[in-house]
Every structure is written in C-alpha cells, then in structure tokens.
C-alpha cells in the first residue's frame, strides 16, 4: 500500500483571507482538512489590563478598538454597562439616536462582511459595491461625531452631542437609495449557481452544537435558534420598534448569508422608524461629574453584528474599574471553526471563516 502523509500547512498570520492576523495550522489529507488549530493573540493589546488603570470615561475609546468594524455597538454596550452599574437613566431622545446609530453600524458591519465574504469566495465585484454603500454610512457617522471608524461618541448617560442639523435628512436620503442597492447584491449572488454551490451545505452546525459552543448572533440563528438580545432582553429602547429576527434552518453558510442580508433590511427599517418617531429632548441624562460607581458588579450584553458583546464591570467604589472584562463574540465564535471545518475541504475553510464573521481586534482584545 502507498504510504500517505498529511500535509501541514500554515495559513496566516499574513494571509489575504483570514480577515486580520489569524494563524491557522491545517493538517490536510489531499484536499480534506484533518485537523485545524487556530492560533490567536497576534492582536492582543492587553485592553483589559489597560482598563484597570483608566477611569470609566477613558475606557470608551478602548472599546472602539475591540471590534473596530462595529465600534458603535461596543460603545453602546460599554456605556450601557456603566449606566447599569450606576443606575443612570438615559433620556428617550438619546436612546432613540443610539438605536439608529447602532442599526446603521450593523448595516455597515454586514456590508464589510458581505464584501469580504464574496471576495474570499471569488466574487470580486460585490466587495466594491458594498463599500460604495458603506462610504455613505461612514459619512453619516462622520457627520455625527467626526470619526469614521472609532467613534467614542456615546457618553455615559446619553450622547456626546445632539444630531447636527441636516443629519436626519441625509440619513433619510441614504435609507431611500439603499434597498435598491441591496437588491443588486442579491441579484448578483443569491441565485448564482456557483455561489449556492460554494455555500450550501458548507460549515453546517446543528442548533445543539451551536449553543454548546456558545455561538451567538447570526452564526447561532443560522442553525435555527431564534435568540436575539434585542428581542429577548431589550435595551436602549429597542422594544419600541417593530422588526423581525431572521432565523435559518440548515445551519450552513448559505443560511447565514441570507440571515445577514435580511438583518440589513430590518436594520434599515428600524432606522426609518427611529427617524419617524424621534422624540425631542435633551441627549444627556443626570450624570455626576466624576464617574465613581458604587461597589458592585454588572454584566451587560448587547447584540452586536457578530454576536453578543458582553461587558463585565467590577467596581470597588473608585474612579477606575477593579476589573473590566469584555466578552468578545469573535473569540467565542472562532472556537466553532474547528468543528465546522474538519472533514471538509480546504477551500471551504476560507468560506467558513467568512461566515463566522470574525474580527481579530475583538477576538484578541
């Protein structure tokens, strides 16, 4: 008999398709993946240690740089955690604007996901189209707080400042053109035979496996589990808006793709509802000058585009947290990579990394 050997290949940390500095050690038997060992930590910056030495307001820019593609969600979760810790109430206008910003951020993040996912599978064109729309969203963010990627513009108790004049009009214009653009994306990919062949049946996870692995977000919903924090434990006023949470059936890459597309549409609808019903009022609640939460601890979760972003704060009564832990959805979702890839082909590894939608800043912190 012929003696065969498995081929050990190193994918990354510099690699066009690992979405950041991720290293995978693959053992291949021909085209089949026999073993997969992720090696992370290349982007570890010690954010949790840093946070222990900064006061609560200074930590917010750190959260921007965790999941930098969805920085607004991170900001929202963090300020929500501090507000929960201190029992601060956020005025309704600030809550509504926060919802709008978070949903716009969800769309922007999913656009990055769609562009890079398509690019990895070979459809170059979708990348450029997605980023064309993303530019408009980033322009909106820039109009609001001056930054395109790392916002640091939510404050404990509300917003940094109110919406600038003309912002709502600009946002509405974007909401008008967007649905037709998304139709274009779907026309390009959703019924494309090659796309379907590359994504159907790839990276299948059952619901039980997904929950056991701790997956959250679209990765979990693709397997048929209807769990979205915005519905389960609504925060920042989400209960006021009507939207649906798409849930998949087969737990494969195609379902997760459809789910995220639908989520984008739902987010646009939420933003429209917010703008239609934007309450008047102040944008900053009653907050003490120095943020010194009482002794205690809190765990606050928000539904980010990638999954549940969790913020665990332990306060010892001083201006700096005793412990600040960030529960990163990418860190947890990446654990599922091994289960989804082993037994499949090496070409699918890239598709599965794309469908898990990982951001290494979030994973490594």
């Amino acid at each position, binding site marked *: 008999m012929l003696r065969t050997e498995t081929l050990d290949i190193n994918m990354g940390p510099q690699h066009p398709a690992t979405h950041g500095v991720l290293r995978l050690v693959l053992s291949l038997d021909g085209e089949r993946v026999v073993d997969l060992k992720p090696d992370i*930590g290349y982007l570890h910056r010690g954010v949790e240690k840093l946070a222990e030495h900064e006061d609560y307001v200074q930590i917010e820019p750190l959260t921007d740089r965790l999941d930098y593609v969805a920085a607004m969600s991170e900001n929202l979760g963090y300020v929500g955690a501090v507000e929960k810790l201190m029992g601060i109430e956020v005025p309704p206008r600030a809550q509504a604007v926060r919802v709008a910003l978070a949903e716009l951020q969800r769309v922007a993040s999913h656009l990055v996901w769609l562009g890079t996912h398509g690019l990895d599978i070979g459809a170059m064109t979708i990348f450029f189209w997605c980023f064309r729309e993303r530019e408009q969203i980033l322009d909106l963010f820039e109009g609001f707080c001056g930054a395109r990627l790392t916002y640091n513009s939510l404050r404990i108790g509300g917003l940094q400042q109110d919406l600038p004049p003309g912002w709502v009009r600009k946002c509405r214009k974007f909401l008008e053109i967007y649905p037709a653009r998304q139709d274009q994306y779907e026309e390009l990919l959703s019924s494309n035979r090659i796309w379907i062949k590359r994504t159907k049946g790839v990276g299948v996870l059952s619901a039980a496996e997904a929950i056991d692995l*701790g997956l959250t977000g679209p990765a979990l919903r693709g397997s048929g589990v209807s769990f979205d924090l915005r519905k389960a434990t609504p925060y920042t006023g989400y209960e006021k808006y009507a939207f649906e949470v798409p849930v998949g059936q087969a737990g494969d890459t195609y379902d997760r793709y459809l789910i995220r597309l639908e989520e984008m549409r739902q987010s646009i609808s939420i933003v429209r509802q917010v703008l239609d019903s934007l309450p008047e009022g102040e944008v900053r609640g009653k907050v003490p000058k120095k943020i010194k939460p009482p002794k205690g601890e809190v765990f606050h979760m928000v539904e980010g585009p990638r999954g549940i972003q969790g913020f665990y704060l332990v306060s010892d009564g001083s201006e700096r947290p005793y412990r600040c832990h960030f*529960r990163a959805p990418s860190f947890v979702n990446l654990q599922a990579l091994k289960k989804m890839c082993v037994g499949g082909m090496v070409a699918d590894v890239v598709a599965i990394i794309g469908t898990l939608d990982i951001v290494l800043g979030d994973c490594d912190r």
Partner: protein
Amino acid sequence: MADTPDEKPSPPSGAGGTPPPGPPPAPPRKEAAPDPLKAEVPSVALDRLRTAHAEALAEVTYHSRQVSVRIAPASLLSVLRFLRDDEACRFDLLIDLCGVDWVAPPERFEVNYHLYSIPRGHFLRLKARFGEGEAAPSATSIWSTADWFEREIFDLFGLTFAGHPDLRRILLPEDWRGHPLRKEYPLAGYPDQHLRLR
C-alpha cells in the same frame, strides 16, 4: 453603600471672589437604604438552587437587578451541571467565563460564570474562589465553549483547570513568562520581555 458625590474642590489659597459653587446635583439613585441598585430580584434559578444544592451556596448578592451566587468550589461542577439540565433552569448558553484577581489570600482568584437560558430567558452569575496553586475544575465537559475561556484565564491569571483537554496559553506567546492580569503584574510589563528592535 451609596457613594457620596464628589466633594467640592477646596478653593486655592489666597483666591478671593465668589465662593465655589455647591456640590453637583446628586445622581438620582442616591441616599438612604434600601439602595435600589442592591434590591433583591426574584430568581427561579436561585430558588431551585436553594432547594437542590443549598449546601453549596456560600453567598448571594444583588446589583442592578442581577443575581450573583457564590458556590463552594467542591460542588462547582455538580451545580453547573444541575443548572444546565434542570427543567426550570435550563441554562444552555454559557455566555462568559472570566476571572477576577482579588489578591488577598488565601483565595485570590474568582471565576465568574455568566449563564443564560435561551428557552427560559433568565440570567445568572455564578462565582467560585480559588487560591494560588489550586486547580479549578474545568467546565468543558458541560459546555464546550468553556474551552477557550478557561485557556484565557490560565493565560492571563495563571489559574489551572483540572480536566481541561488542552490547557495552554492562548493570547500570549507560548514562551511568555508571567500572568499579566494579576494585580502585581506591572502595566508596562517587564523590560526584559519587551521586543528588542535593535
């Protein structure tokens, strides 16, 4: 204990003029006991624990309408398994597993389990304390997701987990010395471990 708002700054010596303004308006949740932040909230899981594992409960605290239950380390795994499988609890999702370094001996490390139940919709925080040199039991047999969480705690705190399939560093390089999230580890690290670029 409710915290007092920031005291007014003492006026600079020799400065005349208007007296400094009064203390800033108090945050709404201030003053007398009972502190609304520490109010007790009903918890189905806690009730079930009191019924089934009363001897394991060491301490129950509340903050911001969240329940934290401290469990004796010896019964940690059985309590976790109970919480996952019991019909009224059904905590199938381990959302987060993190460590806190309380420094004071003998039990400096606290491991926090944040559990959520998708079918029942409730949330619970479980804690357990371990000392330097002790090994915590690994929860990987209950939730697979505990794997990397425990590796991270081992990496950053140095707390080992007995029964973990592959306990090695995850975020830091394999040859790193020290455990950065311990309170005595300096923020800037140790110079001899810094990257030498010249």
